[in-house]
């Protein structure tokens, strides 16, 4: 049987570092900054934390920190508590939060910490993700694949099947850069025009430079506790509850594009993770019942596919959804009001935790110019590998 997380776990504090090319800060500096901001927000100290999960995707890909639980224990002096590291492609940060929430829901711990962190810019951008694909992985299969290449093949197929084009993708970039311009912690804070997007140099045709998220440093932290303790022990009037959380692995990592059942017009992983989360949260009509969403816009095409896979619109209707302004701040279902991965950047292990933290800020009404007014229920989504794994959270204000 499948249980539900609904009503069991509260988020009582979050922290997010500035995202960007943070040459002056170390991995540990980022972890400490995010964690202590979350401690302060929660009104706890390190001593209250009973156990912790660290999400870092590929520590040895571009540095040395984050290889295991001790990386986090050392940075925060959590000795000798249970601390573990998780890694699940681009869902890694969300997976740290999910593990922490499960530990609370199981009754094993009352107060826990989840931190997502990635320090990618100790090496040049090419030396991080590109080199990972070119130099690592299987000696033969999928050799020549890159991160944008993994998603551009879907763009090409989607264009073929639904008649969409690069102008549709540009709408996503323009929207998310606008949102990012309102977020002081985003990597990119400049608005861009559709013309700029369309004239940008190609990265992986049909994707151009502005269709891609940047390589970024950052960390985010989330303090979670038993739902009934949020008010009784920590004196919180306003906090956030996890209504549902799902995770799905729907294809292999190296073999995705060999898989005859992979549609190249959407992600089964997202559809299944959303199904799990919606079922726990009691969501039956996401477009009506979700007030805002942070979704995985690693590349512009991904956000369009996400609208469809998450059930906001039907397959093929994603381009119209963004063009109508529905997903823009002020629209009926604002998506990526943080600026998304496109503007915030995508420190891989940090992103999922950053999504949960950002949605927490929104649900608690702390987002100033980019606040979604009256937001009660929010959806967070990450997608990892070439769409092999996805994580979906449904959160609500208590």
């Amino acid at each position, binding site marked *: 049987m499948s249980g539900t997380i609904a009503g069991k776990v509260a988020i009582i504090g979050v922290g997010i570092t500035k995202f960007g090319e943070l040459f002056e800060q170390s991995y540990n500096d980022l972890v400490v900054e995010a964690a202590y901001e979350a401690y302060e927000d929660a009104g706890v100290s390190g001593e209250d934390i009973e156990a912790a999960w660290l999400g870092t995707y590929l520590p040895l890909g571009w540095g040395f920190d984050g290889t295991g639980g001790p990386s986090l224990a050392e940075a925060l002096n959590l000795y000798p508590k249970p601390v573990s590291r998780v890694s699940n492609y681009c869902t890694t940060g969300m997976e740290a939060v999910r593990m922490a929430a499960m530990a609370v829901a199981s009754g094993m711990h009352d107060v826990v910490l989840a931190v997502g962190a990635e320090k990618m810019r100790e090496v040049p951008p*090419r030396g991080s993700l*590109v080199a990972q*694909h*070119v*130099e*690592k*992985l*299987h*000696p*033969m*299969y*999928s*050799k*020549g*694949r*890159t991160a*944008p*290449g993994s998603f*551009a*093949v*879907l*763009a*090409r*197929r989607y264009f*073929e099947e639904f008649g969409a084009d690069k102008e549709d993708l540009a709408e996503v970039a323009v929207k998310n850069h606008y949102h990012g311009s309102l977020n002081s912690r985003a990597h990119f804070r400049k608005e861009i025009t559709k013309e700029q997007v369309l004239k940008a*140099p*190609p*990265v*992986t*045709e*049909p*994707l151009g430079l502005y269709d891609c998220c940047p390589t970024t440093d950052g960390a985010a932290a989330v303090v979670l506790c038993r739902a009934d303790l949020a008010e009784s022990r920590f004196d919180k009037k306003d906090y956030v509850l996890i209504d549902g959380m799902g995770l799905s692995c729907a294809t*292999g990592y190296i*073999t995705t*594009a*060999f*898989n*005859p*059942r992979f549609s*190249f017009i959407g992600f089964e992983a997202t559809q299944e993770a959303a199904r799990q989360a919606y079922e726990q949260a009691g969501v039956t009509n996401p477009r009506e019942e979700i007030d805002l969403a942070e979704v995985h816009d690693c590349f512009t095409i991904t956000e369009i596919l996400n609208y469809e896979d998450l059930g906001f619109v039907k397959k093929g209707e994603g381009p119209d959804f963004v063009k109508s302004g529905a997903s823009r701040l002020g629209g009926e279902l604002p998506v990526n009001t943080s600026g998304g991965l496109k503007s915030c950047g995508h420190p891989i292990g940090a992103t999922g935790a950053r999504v949960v933290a950002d949605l927490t800020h929104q649900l608690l009404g702390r987002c100033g110019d980019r606040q979604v007014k009256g937001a009660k229920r929010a959806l967070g989504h990450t997608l990892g590998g070439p769409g092999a794994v996805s994580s979906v959270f449904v959160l609500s204000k208590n």
Partner: protein
Amino acid sequence: MAGITRVGAYIPFHRLDGETVRAVWGTGNRRASRPLAGFDEDPITMGVEALINAAGWGDSQVDSLYFASTTHPYAEKSNASVLAAAADLPETLFTLDAGGSVRAGTSALKAACDAIEAGSSKSAAVVAAEKRPALPGSPDELSLCDGAAAVLLGKGEDVAAEIEAVYSWSEDFIDRWRLPGEGAVSAGDAKFIQDYGYVRQSVATVEGLLSQTGATREDIARVLVYAPDARTHAAIARKLGFPDSAYPESPLIARLGDSGAAAPLLSLVDALQSAEPGEHIIVAGHGSGGEAILLRATDKVHSLRTQRGVGWSVERARAIPNYGQWLKFNGLSPEEEIKPFTSPSILWKENRATMRLMAGVCRSCGELQYPRQQVCNACGTRDEWDERKLGRRGKIFTFIHDYLPPSPEGFITMATVELEGGGRFYGQMTSQVKDEVHIGMECELTFRLLHQGDGYYNYFWKLRPAE
């Protein structure tokens, strides 16, 4: 009597044109258009192309393989064994790398013929392939030719050209040579090596065959001799004294260039594909003596015409756009060095999948999976697989052009293809024209050098347009 049953050839599609060379050096034969191995091609990959063109896609019964080249990619380690795996030849196979002389192609043909006659081999494959070394700015860069040829030998009713006689002789002679590690071929006194080497020796080789067999010049329909250039070919032809009609109207040496050990077999394959039953053909290899082989086309010889030969390759030729590509193809311009992860134990244990393209068909649910897991990814049944080789052809389902990975062409085209017979293959495209790639495009799998991680050659399959 032993004879040739199948043929195949492969000339790389890239051409280095005389005008491209003149734009850089100011000199060079304007009319030259020299076939050039791509950056992902070498004698092994070109040999595989020729061998598959001869032997087909899987299910081959070849039991001995002779691989001739003066430019074997591996100086130590079997080269033929790579061909055998990629062409999916049986594992109960005798293999031999033959090298050391541009005569190696005809020498290997003689050895294979002897094995068939002796009964130690029922079906032999002889492959000759070269990636000829030439320095930029040297005359060789326009006169040499890369390429490969393959012939299958056997006995019985499948024989399309009987091998009636072979004459072989040896004489220590220095004409052209190359020491280990040298990037170009050296040559002795031009006048001396032409008159006393190519012309005198080739005449001795062919006349030796005639006197051994009692054949006369009038009995021979076609005479194919090796020469390093068209001028020398004409000089040999004059001295040999056959009627003009016995020589190719436009010999490959004049059309394509000097393909070394591959040259005699390429000429033979080309000749057999236009030969009529009953024709006698002499093909001669040269080098410190020589071999001359007398063949007679049987009434099966027309069956060779449908196989992919020189004509098939030449139709697909296109010039490289600039001289820089020639430098890049030969590793002569600075490139971002990448050494991808690889491991001899991985290459060994995954050999049937990566080299022979063996997929699994689940006995429980019928799913064709490549690369296959132990547990079926469709129905969850463990270890109930029938092995099935992937089809070679398919249609592009989706593709991209990626500018991020290092590549001598500046981008890599990646495509997922739905294969005939089921399954998908996802990989790099090669020999493609970027703007012509489209969804639905017919492609076929082609064996290529993928990278040199860990210091050795890592070969794998790529996708090539096949429309």
